[in-house]
């Protein structure tokens, strides 16, 4: 038989300041674990979910899957369109998007005033044609319009990527020796595109004096058609092309970040360990003065397992309060918070999995934090325990 629920609750009220500090430190530990989970989930989602199943990227064979290093002739898109069967077409338009991927220094109006003292902002540019909106159908313009000559369309996280406070329609940016106006803002939730600056491919070619494109992105009628494209690139060795499913491309890219994710989890584990030590320390302090009380309860007839459960219950109340607090803070302040990384920017994602990790952290802190002090306190012979002052 367990002790009354009230016993645990009222024990926490014995020393309200200590209870409040324990809740605060446990909240912090859970919050840090949640932040790591949100970081990993956000990064994984961005790299894992970018791309459409039926899309294939054709790029320079030998570019080692790095689109920025890839250069293929301007005529390649037309060649592919003419040579391949199974490319999706709608109302006479082929889903073939020649694109330029470029990483370059971007300056804001304020940077021009500061001169050399200005922050170096590295932006990710994508030169596009209207077909880009067909093949990248997850992209939607949420404000303004598609870019015309001398204009750029910016993703929601571009400001985060280049370290700016924000970019609005009508703002100006400078790169490749030219000034560009922001014509619109686009969203593409959970993809790397949101940290890119899109502009007309010909505009970009003129500005950079490039005559080639980086890659061609095509939407096939089904994902089963992608091997045909790969077979074509393997057959036409003279074109020096390689093809890869868009999903696979970004998934491979994500694997490069496995060490970072691992490091993040190691940090979370260390934080968790710290939280556990803190929770155990609080419970040690809490039960240290209750040895005689616990001895008396045993002499009345309560078995040790009932008392251990009661102490776990007490510690779990703290952990539950901390979990709720940490989850509320994470959902309110961390969720959606944009972070910069080399491939762009991504939003922290406090999703069901991240919350589950936070809850499990709280549960384990509650149980494991109480176990050592409870077992230690109850290990003492009853006869000695009841005599303690």
């Amino acid at each position, binding site marked *: 038989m367990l002790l009354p629920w009230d016993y645990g609750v009222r024990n926490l009220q014995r020393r309200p300041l200590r209870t409040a500090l324990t809740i605060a430190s446990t909240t912090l530990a859970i919050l840090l674990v949640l932040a790591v989970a949100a970081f990993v989930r956000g990064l994984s989602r961005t790299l894992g979910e970018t791309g459409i199943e039926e899309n294939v990227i054709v790029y320079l064979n030998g570019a080692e899957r790095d689109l920025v290093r890839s250069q293929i002739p301007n005529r390649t898109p037309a060649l592919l369109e003419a040579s391949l069967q199974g490319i999706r077409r709608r109302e006479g338009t082929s889903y073939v998007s020649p694109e330029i991927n470029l990483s370059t220094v971007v300056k804001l109006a304020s940077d021009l005033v500061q001169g050399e003292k200005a922050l170096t902002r590295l932006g990710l540019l994508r030169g596009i044609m209207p077909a880009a909106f067909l093949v990248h159908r997850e992209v939607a313009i949420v404000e303004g319009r598609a870019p015309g000559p001398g204009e750029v369309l910016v993703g929601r996280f571009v400001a985060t990527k280049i370290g700016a406070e924000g970019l609005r329609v009508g703002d100006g940016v400078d790169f490749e020796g030219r000034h560009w106006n922001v014509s619109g803002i686009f969203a593409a939730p959970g993809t790397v595109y949101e940290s890119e600056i899109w502009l007309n491919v010909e505009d970009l070619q003129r500005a950079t004096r490039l005559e080639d494109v980086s890659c061609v992105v095509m939407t096939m009628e089904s994902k089963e058609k992608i091997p045909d494209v790969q077979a074509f690139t393997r057959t036409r060795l003279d074109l020096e092309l390689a093809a890869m499913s868009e999903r696979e491309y970004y998934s491979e890219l994500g694997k490069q970040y496995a060490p970072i994710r691992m490091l993040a989890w190691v940090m979370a584990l260390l934080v968790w360990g710290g939280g556990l030590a803190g929770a155990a320390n609080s419970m040690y302090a809490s039960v240290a003065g209750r040895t005689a009380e616990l001895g008396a309860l045993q002499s009345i*007839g309560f078995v040790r397992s009932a008392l251990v459960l009661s102490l776990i219950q007490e510690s779990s109340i703290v952990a539950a309060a901390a979990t709720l607090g940490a989850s509320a803070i994470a959902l309110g302040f961390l969720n959606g918070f944009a972070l910069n990384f080399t491939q762009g920017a991504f939003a922290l994602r406090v999703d069901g999995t991240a919350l589950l990790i936070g809850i499990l952290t709280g549960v384990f802190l509650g149980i494991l934090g109480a176990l050592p002090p409870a077992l230690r306190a109850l290990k003492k012979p009853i006869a000695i325990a009841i005599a303690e002052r």
Partner: protein
Amino acid sequence: MALIELRGVTKVYSKGGRDFAPLKDLDLDIEKNEFVALMGPSGSGKTTLLNIISGIDKPTRGSVRVGGVDVPSLSRSKAAQWRSRAIGYIFQRYNLVPVLTAFENVELPLLLHKMSGAARAKRVTLALQAAGISHRANHTPTELSGGEEQRVSIARAIVADPQIIVADEPTGDLDRDSASAVLGLLTRLHREFGKTLLMVTHDAKAAEIAQRTIRLQKGTFLTPEPGASSGNGTRPPTPSPAPTAAGAAP
């Protein structure tokens, strides 16, 4: 057959590599409804004997049978279950749970028995009344005087209607008036409710209320002192117990 029967009970502790024996080869019989006082200097083994009888401690050698139960053979959890039915323990320092009210403290032993909330409340009320502390039922121990706390402790010891009440220096921390009231209460438990009482005390006056006084020294019983009205082996007649109220001990 005696209610409490000890044969050859020896308890040896090891401390700092040295053995010492607070109890040495003791034999003791305590009959049902008997009130026994256990006296002796500090370290003579009184509390150890009390703890062994109530299953809180185990003897190193010897047998302990209480109500026919071989107490040392019980596992820790079985001993706890047996204690919850058979023994009411009164501590010198009351050992009440500070975060619970007097009522809730007294209710604790009943939580170990299958009983409805209403039945529990009725028995707790009766126990508090019997201990003369029902007017303080909703107070926590910090709001009670020492005498009041000890009354709550007594109510807690009798609420589950155990046959045996063990009291370890129940008046040790009390002033004279409170001590007198507590001793009066213990006498009532014995006389009116027919409980078997085993009380450790340093106070010779407190021991006078018992039917028999056992003196311990260095782990062995002393023979009755000349002129003493009681001692090991002399046993006055046991009073008849009064009927219990509403099925509860009090």
